[in-house]
């Protein structure tokens, strides 16, 4: 399996070792870090939730598409779930290839598709005590979201 959902911290060194290949001249990696703001709001912490069986199936499908479209040697991707702090690595994508063009293009394709297609949701906790699911118009009533909003 090349796409993983996991609740342990992501270790880029371990993951990058999987990309090693004597034919590889280029290695491009993407890390998504939890940042301290989003659309003008100060973010204090995040939770990621996934539906793992479908997330993994969809993730593997994306990696297979990338292998078919781009001349790459190895691809691996992982996404964290659970509670994350500012600066934590939420998602990692790594690609090795003989030449850098394919490595850059495949890495970008994979992270763009993960963000658009894989069933993973992000709940942000804000400095003002509020919280919200990113990209969702649906909002829980205040009395239900209250307790979760205090998690950090």
């Amino acid at each position, binding site marked *: 399996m090349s796409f993983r959902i996991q609740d342990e911290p992501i270790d880029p060194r371990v993951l990058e070792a999987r990309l090693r290949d004597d034919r590889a001249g280029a290695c491009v990696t993407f890390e*998504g870090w939890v940042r301290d703001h989003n659309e003008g709001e100060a973010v204090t912490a995040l939770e990621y*939730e996934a*539906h793992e*069986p*479908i997330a993994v*199936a*969809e993730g593997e499908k994306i990696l297979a598409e990338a292998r078919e479209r781009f001349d790459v040697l190895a691809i691996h991707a992982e*996404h964290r779930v659970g509670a994350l702090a500012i600066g934590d690595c*939420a*998602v990692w994508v790594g690609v090795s290839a003989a030449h850098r063009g394919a490595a850059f293009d495949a890495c970008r394709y994979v*992270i763009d598709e*993960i*963000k*658009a*297609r*894989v*069933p*993973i*949701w*992000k*709940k942000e906790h804000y400095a003002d005590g509020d919280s919200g*699911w*990113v*990209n*969702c*118009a*649906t*909002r*829980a*009533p205040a009395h*239900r*979201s209250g307790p*979760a909003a205090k998690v950090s």
Partner: protein
Amino acid sequence: MEVTARYFAAFREQAGKESERVETRARTAGELYGELAARHGFADPRARCKVAINDELRDWDAELADGDVVLFFPPVAGG
């Protein structure tokens, strides 16, 4: 026909539950979403959401069968 609806992330919080048994006349996943969105106040347009039946992603016009487990996914935000 009776199916099981499962809710994730914002949908779960808005519905106040993870899943429920639903007695419905909806023939497709999309029709069922319409019913449940009205009941629970889901505000996301169907086109931005996804649906899975028995752990496989499907189109909104997929037909339902008695006993199906229907998963409703609000808009994703990976990364």
